[in-house]
């Protein structure tokens, strides 16, 4: 690993984002709008305080997944990846450079949405608010790393977009938001045990109800998923192709 090339790549990806004002607007505006809609349909109050915290992580996760897989796919389809693969940059520096840049974007996005939800929409959690922010950021970073890993499965941007419902919707159904995980059929619960989103939702539910929540086991599992998905993203990048 070469930190200089990792940072050069991260800087380049952020410069690309900076040139795209509409995407920055969508990145921050869409989850903020969605949280407002959620607040509106539940008329604020108790149900919003239950459904809000998990969705505060899930909305950014979905958006970051899409942005990451399409950006990475663009690198592949425009030939810049092939050019880079002939140059002295390690695959890890490239993938981690993307992760750092888009992770930073995820941090800004989540910070804005969480601040807005807590102060403007009066989202109430029993636990400390910084824990809510931490888990939401981790969920968004999970979205980034899932996007990096998934982009190697897709040949076109058209396919990459379709991996969103394929990889994220099952996690959404099984994460315990619609049906508590311990009330699912045993097999469904077993599957949900190996999906990263389940741990993010477990942790955030704990923060929502417990004044002194223990989230570190979940945070550790999410961290392990992030590292594993990054490794998958690096290993699935091939210098030589058919």
């Amino acid at each position, binding site marked *: 690993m070469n930190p*200089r*090339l990792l940072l*050069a*790549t991260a*800087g*380049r990806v952020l*410069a*690309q984002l900076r*040139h*795209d004002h509409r995407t920055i607007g969508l990145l921050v505006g869409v989850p903020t709008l969605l949280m407002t809609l959620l607040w509106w349909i539940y008329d604020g109050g108790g149900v919003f305080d239950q459904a809000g915290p998990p969705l505060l992580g899930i909305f950014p996760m979905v958006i970051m997944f899409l942005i990451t897989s399409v950006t990475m796919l663009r690198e592949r389809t*425009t*030939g*810049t990846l*092939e*050019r*880079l*693969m*002939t*140059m*002295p*940059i390690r695959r890890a520096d490239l993938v981690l450079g993307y992760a750092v840049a888009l992770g930073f974007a995820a941090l800004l996005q989540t910070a804005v949405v969480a601040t807005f939800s807590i102060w403007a929409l009066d989202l109430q959690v029993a636990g400390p608010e910084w824990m809510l922010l931490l888990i939401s950021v981790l969920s968004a970073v999970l979205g980034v790393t899932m996007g990096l890993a998934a982009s190697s499965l897709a040949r076109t941007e058209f396919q990459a977009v379709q991996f969103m419902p394929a990889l994220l919707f099952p996690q959404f159904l099984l994460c315990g938001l619609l049906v508590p995980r311990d009330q699912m059929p045993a097999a469904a619960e077993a599957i949900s045990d190996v999906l990263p989103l389940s741990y993010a939702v477990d942790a955030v539910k704990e923060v929502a109800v417990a004044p002194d929540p223990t989230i570190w086991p979940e945070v550790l599992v999410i961290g392990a998923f992030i590292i594993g998905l990054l490794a998958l993203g690096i290993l699935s990048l091939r*210098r*030589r*192709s*058919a």
Partner: protein
Amino acid sequence: MMNQSAAVVVDRLTVVRGTTTALREVSLALEPATLTGLLGPSGAGKTTLMRAIVGVQRLTSGTVTVLAHPAGAPVLRDRVGYVTQDPSAYADLTVRQNLRYFARVLGAPAADVDRVIGQVELDGQADQVVQTLSGGERSRVSLAAALLGDPQLLVLDEPTVGLDPVLRRDLWALFRSLADTGATLLVSSHVMDEATRCDRLLLLRGGGLLADGTLAELQAQTGQSDPEQVFLHLIDHGIGGAA
């Protein structure tokens, strides 16, 4: 081993992709400090051969040796410049931002960015976003990136497509001066009059090497004088075929 001193040695290279054979037992050598033209109809295997030389093509059999190392070896990665067929640059960055990033990846000095911008005559567009450039300007951004760090081998896949005759002349003059100062160049082209600017020509057809020689040699072999006719004759009849 065909030639110890050659910049590039391709030895019985075969590439099978799915059910099609993109290259069949191709052998050739490129002498250092020469400008070689790679010609052939589309689908002949030109891009596959170039990808094999820069080390991003999976090989079925045979070997490719570049500057005495296996193609794609880590030591070669700052010594080989490659221009892909479609201009490869980040559309949402400026010309200078693109080149600055590639220069950092190559470990090339920052001053190289301005040098290559001048070499491809993009001084006026240096701070323009690539998306807003014309097709010809974009392909020159791609070429500029390949010139960063003074590579010893340049592999250029149709670098002059879509360029006007004046720019084409200027770029071929640039290629010539690079070869004269010690770089080895392999340039693919569809435009037959560009063949006259090369030291040597390689002609691919259907994944096989059909002809390998100077334009004068190929003119003598085919009995044709016009490069276009030499090419068509070779495609239709092969080497030694009756006119």
